[in-house]
Structure formats: structure tokens, C-alpha cells
């Protein structure tokens, strides 16, 4: 407890009196004058401070200001000598004003009881306030007082609340008389000074709002209200400024304004029709979309109006009734499609939701409606439905569990089942048994999220037949649905199959054609070969005809010569001299000429080959017999090695004899001084090199070799030995036809003949014949016969 001011003895008596009432005081201090510097030295703030009015009004103010700021829990009681001014002190936070006379004697007890009770009440009030303020988080306002003398401010007192609002203590303001001015936001200073000037001029204005810079640098908004104190003369001697921190309020207001703008922008930018109406169906809120739809210039034009102001009466009536139902039933109307007409008179479909609007107490005060123009959607939907109904393709929606959920009428047309039949059972039951596995696999892929294109399977029709369907399908994983379209490709399939078959046939025919072509080629080759043979035969025939003509013409003279020679020989048989020898030579010459003519006929004429299957041995034997004389004449040894085991050959005996005779004669002519002539025949399995193409591989052949020890054949002659009329023999000894005839006869027998040299000397002729072959000459028979 502290007493400030007043006489020391007075306050000593008060102390004694109080101690006599309540016992010793826990704390007592008396200061003759206000000494703020002394106060803080006290270890604890006092709970009660007596302020003796003798210290003067100014000191009182300072004291009260300090106490409010520093010791807010201290209750202040003013003691004064005369009554009056109590209300003002009370307004400044003093809890009681006591007359000095009440501080002594028996009154002291009553005074103390009253002060104690009041201080208790004040403290509780203070505690509550403090708690509230703590809860609010800040002290929102404070008061400052400006003392004015002669129209000028002379002192300023800031209440302790200034600390919370501005961050500065009352002492800071006391120490710096211009702090309050600096504290004001630079931009707002003119406004504040203007307000101050108006106060000083005696005409205070309304509260102003301005910014201050808090000690921590933050900007705060305050409302500054002024209360003017005038003396009895009506002059202003002081004014109070009430500073109220409105930063939060302003922030809230601004936020609210922002929110309003936000919401407004939001609903105005929505294409949906949003409006609110009151109980009489008058617009209280509407967005731009509504205004546009209804033909109003802006949302504001709708406010207070009803649908009757915009729509035809019956339509407006219908809306009105709808709204009435919502308002009276208090039940929302959700996603109801309603017909409407836009400002151009075009019919529109609106899907709207209307909900009752309630006030804080829950009573219905109107309705809110959100609507959407679904005209395009409905049109698209309707078109989709039309297409769904009209398309020839099979459209379906199926679930992941294997059932159709929706099918278009094409299904009925195509398969013959009704849609309810198709929806009735899992679709796999309609799939061809051979296609079910593949179909299940595709369904699984779809369930896994794959898109399936160009899948084919067969579906059973009501009549038991099957149709080929070509599918495109895609799944919707969220819905667990499969959307699929199928096309009946049965006809295409069968066309494809036919095509395939036709193609196959074509390919088959092509190969047959190729084969035929190949056969034709072979035939052509064969024909060509035959033709060559025929041409050769033709040549021979011409030669034969010529030869036959010549023969007749030549042979008659020969006959004359021969006969003549013989006549002469008969007559001159005994004549001496060379006549007999001359005639003999002439006779031989005639025979030789005859031989040449005959050879020519033989060579040139076409022949009947008269083959017979026979052994080779006797033919060679016979031929060697025909050359027996020349062999002996030329002292040539003849050897024959022809095994009897050789297969029989199909041979024209006479012609083969001629072959051997011709070869033998050539050999003999090549050995004028004697030698050896050998004939060897062997069965062989392999045609010799160069002839391997002329005989079937692996066929049995008979090789007949005629070997001599003669002069051999020169290289240049080897190539020509088979040419007709080629001869190396002296004139008169060879016709040049011997080996040509040999080759021709062997060829007619289907065989081949080769001539070569032997080492160290001699020539060899090899003849190859197939056993029991069909003589080729039969096929080129020219039927040439000579008349005789």
C-alpha cells in the first residue's frame, strides 16, 4: 500500500488506523510527492495506491498514467479535501474518491471497508478484462490526453494501452514529444494534422482512420476519435484522443470485399445460370449468364424482378409454380430439366437444381438455383441415340463379367435373337465354340485396359448358322465396361474363302501349266532333235535320189566296159605281151568304180533297220571273215575277245557287219607292213566321260573296242574322220564314206562311236551300245524304196 502526497503525519495516522483495523500492513510506503523514478524501485507493485490530491492535477495525471501502464493491477483511490470532480477521476480509472475527513476516526473503518470492497470488485473486473484481453490477443485501443493552454498543446499523456497498439510506452511518448507525429504513416500525416488543427480551432471533425508505424515496423490501421474538454469559459483546455486499433477490422473488411469480388467473378464467369430469389420469387442475386439468357443488360437489372417481367405468362407461371413447390416444401429440386426460351426465342433445355435458402435460424427465406443449358447435350444425345438405332453395325456395352448391358437393334437384325435374349445370358454362350477361347483372351486384354481392334469371331444366329463379326472394342476401366462395335463380315469372309480357293486353283493350274510348258519344252527339244535327224535324213534322201539316178547312168557304161574287157580278155587270153595285164587292170578299175557307186547308194539311201536281238560274237566273226584276204595280204594278226556272257544286242546284222568291215579295212590300210588288229567287247556300267549324258546313268552298256597297231590318226584328222568324203587314203583307195557310214549305222542303233589314238601307236575305235534297245531309226523311217 502506498500513499502519494499529503502530509506525512496525516498518512501516519491513516496507517495506524488501518493497522488497528486489520493488523500490521504487509507493505506501506508514503511519498510526499509523485516520484516515478522511486516507484519502480519497489520490489513488488502495490495493490492499492492512495493519491492525495494535494500533489496537483498534472502530477495526478502523470501518476495515474504511470500506474495504469506499469502497475495495472494497482487500485487507485484519490483523497481530496472537497467533493467534486469525482466522475472525471473515475473516468480515468480511479476506483474511488474519498474526502479527507472520511479518513480518520470512526469513518476510517467505513471508508476502508468500502475501499476494500471496491478494490476487490475492481480487481475482479480487471482480472476478467485482462483475461478477455489475453483471449483477444491484443489490447485494441488506448487513450491519450493533450493538455492545451492558450490554444497550444503543452503536454501529452498516453495511456498504458499505447504499448500494445504502437509498441511504445507512455514514458517513450513523454521523452519524445514528437514521437506521436513520427509514428503516423507519412501519407496520413496531413490528414491527422488537419484533424488536430480542427480540434485546436475548436471544431473537431468526425473520427479519422489512418495508419501508424508500429515500433516493430508493421503498419497498423487506427481509428482516431477526439473528445474535447472545455473550461467554464468554453475554451478548450484539453482533448482526449481515443486510438482504436482497427487493423484486423480493416483486414476483415478488405477480405470480405475481396471475397465478394471473388464470388461475384466466380458466379459471373460460370456458364451456368445461378440466381437466388426471395419468397416472392424476386431475384436477389443473379449472375451474368442468367442476365444474358433473360435478355437483361446485367445482373443488377434482374434484382427485385420476377420471371413474369421477362417470360411469357404461361412459362413464367410454370417456373413460379416450380419455385413455389421448393419454397413451400423446403425440399430441393435436383437436376430437373425444364424447357426455356432464350432471348432470341430459340428453345433451350435447362437442367436446373433449386434448393431452399435458409437464414441463420433455419427458416426458408428464398431459394438458390443453379441451371445449365443442356440443349446441345440433349441434341448430341438424341443424335447419338438415332445413330445407335440406325447403324448397321452391332454396337454394344458389356461389363467385365461377360454380359451385355446394352445392344442396338442391329443385333436383332443380324443374329435374329431379341435383345432381351441376348442380354439374358453371358455373351460367350453365343460365340462359336472354336472362337470362345480367343474371345475370352480378348475380353481379358480389354479388362486389363487394352484397346482391341480388328478382332474376329463367329456368333450364333437364332437359326443355328454363324455370322463372322469383326470387332473394335475399348474398355472403360473406371466403369468396368467394354464399349464395342462389331460388323457382320460373313459375306466378306466367304468371298475371301472363295478367293482363297480360286487362288489355290489358280496356283494349281499355274503349276499344271508350268508343267505342261516344261513338257512342251521337252517335246520341243525332242522334236528339234528329231527334226535334226529328219533334216539329216532329208539330206540323205536327196543324196540317195541323186545317187540312184547317177548309179543307173554310170552302171550301164560300167557294164559295157566290163563286158568289153571280158570279151577282149577271152580273145587275147593267149596273146603275148602286156595286153592281158592291161585288160585285168581295166577290169579291176570297173569293179572299183562300181564299188564307189554302190557305197554312195548305201550311204545316201534311207534304210530299213532290221534289228534282231542277237549275240555280238557271230557278227564280228562274219565281218572278220569278209576281210580275211586283206588281213592275210597285209600280214595282220587278228584277235577277237568277245565273251559269250555279253548281253544280247538288238542289231541289224548286215549293217553291223558293214560297220566292222569298214573299221577293219581302215585298220588294215593303216598297217601296210603288218601288225595286230584286236576286237574286244565288254559289258560296262558307266558311260565314258563325254558320253555320260547320252545314256541313262548307271545303265548297262556294251563297249566294243577295235584296236590296231597302225599309224594312228593325226590330230587334225581326228576331228574330221566322220565327215562324209573325208579320206586320207591315196586316190582310188578310199571313198571317204566308210566312217560316216559307221557312225550313221551306230547312231541308228542308238549307240555312239569314238575314234582315238593308242599309245605308243595305233588307233582305237570304241562303240557303245545299249543292250536290247529300241533302234531310233524306226522312228525316222522315211520309207524310201527304190523301184527295180
Amino acid at each position, binding site marked *: 500500500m502506498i500513499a502519494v502526497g499529503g502530509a506525512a503525519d496525516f498518512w501516519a495516522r491513516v496507517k495506524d488506523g488501518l493497522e488497528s483495523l486489520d493488523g500490521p500492513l504487509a507493505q506501506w510506503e508514503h511519498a510526499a510527492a509523485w516520484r516515478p523514478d522511486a516507484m519502480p524501485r519497489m520490489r513488488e507493485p502495490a495493490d492499492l495506491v492512495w493519491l492525495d490530491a494535494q500533489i496537483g492535477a498534472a502530477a495526478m495525471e502523470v501518476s495515474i498514467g504511470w500506474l495504469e501502464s506499469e502497475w495495472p493491477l494497482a487500485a487507485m483511490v484519490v483523497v481530496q479535501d472537497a467533493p467534486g470532480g469525482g466522475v472525471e477521476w473515475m473516468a480515468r480509472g480511479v476506483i474511488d474518491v474519498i474526502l479527507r475527513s472520511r479518513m480518520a476516526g470512526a469513518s476510517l473503518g467505513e471508508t476502508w471497508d468500502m475501499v476494500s470492497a471496491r478494490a476487490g470488485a475492481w480487481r475482479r473486473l480487471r482480472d476478467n478484462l485482462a483475461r478477455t484481453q489475453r483471449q483477444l490477443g491484443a489490447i485494441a485501443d488506448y487513450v491519450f490526453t493533450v493538455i492545451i493552454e492558450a490554444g497550444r498543446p503543452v503536454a501529452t499523456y498516453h495511456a498504458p494501452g499505447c504499448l500494445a497498439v504502437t509498441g511504445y510506452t507512455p514514458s517513450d511518448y513523454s521523452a519524445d514529444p514528437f514521437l506521436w507525429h513520427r509514428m503516423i504513416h507519412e501519407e496520413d500525416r496531413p490528414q491527422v494534422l488537419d484533424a488536430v488543427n480542427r480540434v485546436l480551432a475548436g471544431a473537431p471533425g468526425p473520427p479519422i482512420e489512418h495508419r501508424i508505424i508500429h515500433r516493430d515496423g508493421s503498419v497498423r490501421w487506427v481509428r482516431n476519435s477526439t473528445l474535447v474538454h472545455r473550461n467554464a469559459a468554453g475554451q478548450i483546455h484539453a482533448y482526449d484522443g481515443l486510438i482504436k486499433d482497427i487493423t484486423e477490422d480493416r483486414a476483415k473488411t478488405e477480405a470480405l470485399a475481396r471475397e465478394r469480388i471473388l464470388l461475384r467473378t466466380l458466379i459471373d464467369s460460370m456458364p451456368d445460370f445461378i440466381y437466388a430469389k426471395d419468397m416472392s420469387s424476386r431475384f436477389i442475386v443473379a449472375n451474368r449468364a442468367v442476365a444474358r439468357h433473360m435478355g437483361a443488360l446485367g445482373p443488377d437489372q434482374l434484382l427485385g424482378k420476377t420471371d413474369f417481367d421477362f417470360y411469357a405468362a404461361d412459362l413464367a407461371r410454370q417456373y413460379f409454380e416450380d419455385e413455389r413447390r421448393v419454397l413451400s416444401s423446403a425440399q430441393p429440386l435436383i437436376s430437373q430439366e425444364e424447357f426455356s426460351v432464350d432471348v432470341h426465342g430459340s428453345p433451350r433445355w435447362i437442367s436446373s437444381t433449386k434448393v431452399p435458402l435458409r437464414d441463420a435460424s433455419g427458416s426458408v427465406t428464398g431459394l438458390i438455383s443453379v441451371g445449365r443449358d443442356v440443349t446441345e447435350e440433349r441434341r448430341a444425345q438424341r443424335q447419338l441415340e438415332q445413330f445407335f438405332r440406325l447403324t448397321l453395325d452391332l454396337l454394344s456395352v458389356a461389363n467385365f463379367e461377360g454380359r451385355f448391358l446394352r445392344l442396338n437393334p442391329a443385333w436383332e437384325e443380324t443374329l435374329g435373337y431379341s435383345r432381351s435374349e441376348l442380354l439374358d445370358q453371358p455373351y460367350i454362350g453365343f460365340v462359336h465354340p472354336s472362337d470362345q477361347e480367343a474371345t475370352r483372351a480378348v475380353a481379358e486384354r480389354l479388362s486389363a485396359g487394352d484397346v482391341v481392334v480388328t478382332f474376329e469371331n463367329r456368333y450364333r444366329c437364332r437359326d443355328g448358322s454363324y455370322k463372322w463379326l469383326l470387332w473394335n472394342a475399348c474398355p472403360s476401366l473406371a466403369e468396368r465396361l467394354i464399349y464395342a462395335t462389331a460388323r457382320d463380315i460373313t459375306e466378306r469372309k466367304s468371298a475371301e474363302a472363295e478367293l482363297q480357293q480360286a487362288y489355290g486353283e489358280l496356283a494349281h493350274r499355274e503349276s499344271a501349266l508350268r508343267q505342261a510348258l516344261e513338257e512342251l519344252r521337252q517335246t520341243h527339244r525332242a522334236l528339234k532333235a528329231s527334226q535334226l535327224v529328219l533334216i539329216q535324213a532329208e539330206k540323205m534322201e536327196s543324196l540317195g535320189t541323186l545317187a540312184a539316178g547317177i548309179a543307173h547312168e554310170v552302171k550301164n557304161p*560300167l557294164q559295157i566296159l566290163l563286158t568289153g574287157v571280158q570279151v577282149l580278155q577271152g580273145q587275147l587270153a593267149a596273146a603275148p605281151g602286156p595286153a592281158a595285164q592291161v585288160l585285168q587292170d581295166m577290169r579291176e578299175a570297173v569293179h572299183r568304180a562300181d564299188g564307189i557307186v554302190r557305197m554312195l547308194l548305201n550311204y545316201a539311201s534311207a534304210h530299213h533297220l532290221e534289228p534282231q536281238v542277237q549275240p555280238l560274237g557271230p557278227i564280228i566273226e562274219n565281218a572278220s571273215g569278209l576281210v580275211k584276204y586283206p588281213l592275210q595280204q597285209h600280214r595282220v594278226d587278228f584277235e577277237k575277245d568277245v565273251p559269250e556272257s555279253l548281253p544280247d544286242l538288238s542289231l541289224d546284222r548286215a549293217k553291223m557287219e558293214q560297220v566292222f568291215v569298214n573299221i577293219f579295212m581302215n585298220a588294215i590300210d593303216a598297217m601296210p607292213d603288218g601288225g595286230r588288229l584286236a576286237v574286244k567287247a565288254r559289258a560296262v556300267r558307266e558311260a565314258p566321260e563325254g558320253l555320260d549324258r547320252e545314256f541313262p546313268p548307271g545303265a548297262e552298256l556294251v563297249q566294243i573296242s577295235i584296236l590296231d597297231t597302225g599309224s594312228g590318226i593325226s590330230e587334225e584328222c581326228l576331228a574330221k574322220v566322220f565327215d562324209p568324203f573325208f579320206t586320207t587314203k591315196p586316190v582310188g583307195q578310199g571313198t571317204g564314206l566308210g566312217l560316216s557310214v559307221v557312225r550313221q549305222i551306230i547312231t541308228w542303233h542308238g549307240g555312239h562311236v569314238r575314234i582315238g589314238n593308242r599309245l605308243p601307236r595305233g588307233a582305237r575305235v570304241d562303240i557303245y551300245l545299249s543292250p536290247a534297245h529300241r533302234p531310233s531309226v524306226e522312228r525316222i523311217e522315211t520309207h524310201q524304196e*527304190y523301184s527295180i
Partner: protein
Amino acid sequence: MKRRKRILIVDDEASLTRLLKLSLEGTGHYEVRVENESAAALGAAQEFRPDLILLDVLMPGLDGGEVCHQLERQAGGQKAPVVFLTAAAKKEEIDKRGGMIGGYPFLAKPVDLEELVQCIEKHSPAPGQWGRI
């Protein structure tokens, strides 16, 4: 002395027939008459009554075959044997057929006197056989 066989030679080649007559008659066994016109052969055969007729095949006018045919008709199967002498057939051909073509003996020109004589002897009957009949 045995009567010489009468041989009629019909051939258009006069030099040949002259020489054949010379050489055949030179053997001393034959009496030879020559006819160079084939058309005259029939009259000659009738007049001469040969034991054998040596007939050329290719002749102007009637050929040998034709002459042979007419001889046969004229004689009614009693004609003299015919040997054809030809330059057109090959000796090998004739040999292959045993010297016979169409039932007639054939000789290919040029033919040796020995061969001709053999052939005549082989096919002619004893002398005068035809003449007697």
C-alpha cells in the same frame, strides 16, 4: 554236139548288147539274139524262142517289168525264164534276197561274165525245152 542255149537279150543300150552277144557267144554255149527296142521284144521272143530272156529293167517305152508281163500273157504261162539285168537295184539288196525279186532272178549291173553265165545256167532249162513245146 549239144544245141546251144538261145538267149534273148532285151536292152536299149546297143553297145552293151553287142558286147554281151559277143562274150556269151564267145563261150561257145550260147546263141544270142539282141533286141534294142523293148516293144519289139515280144515278136523277137516268139520268133527266136529263147531258152532264157535277159531283160533290162529301165528302157524307153515299155520297161522290163512291162515286157515280162506281156511275155507272160502271150505265152500263157509257157514263156521262157526271165533274168532281169538292172542298173537301178543295188547288188547288196539283190544278194540279200537271194538274187530274187518278185519271183524273178535279178542281176545288178555291172555284172561279171562269170556271174552272168552262172545265173543263166541256174535259171535256164535244158536247151530246146521251150522250143519243143
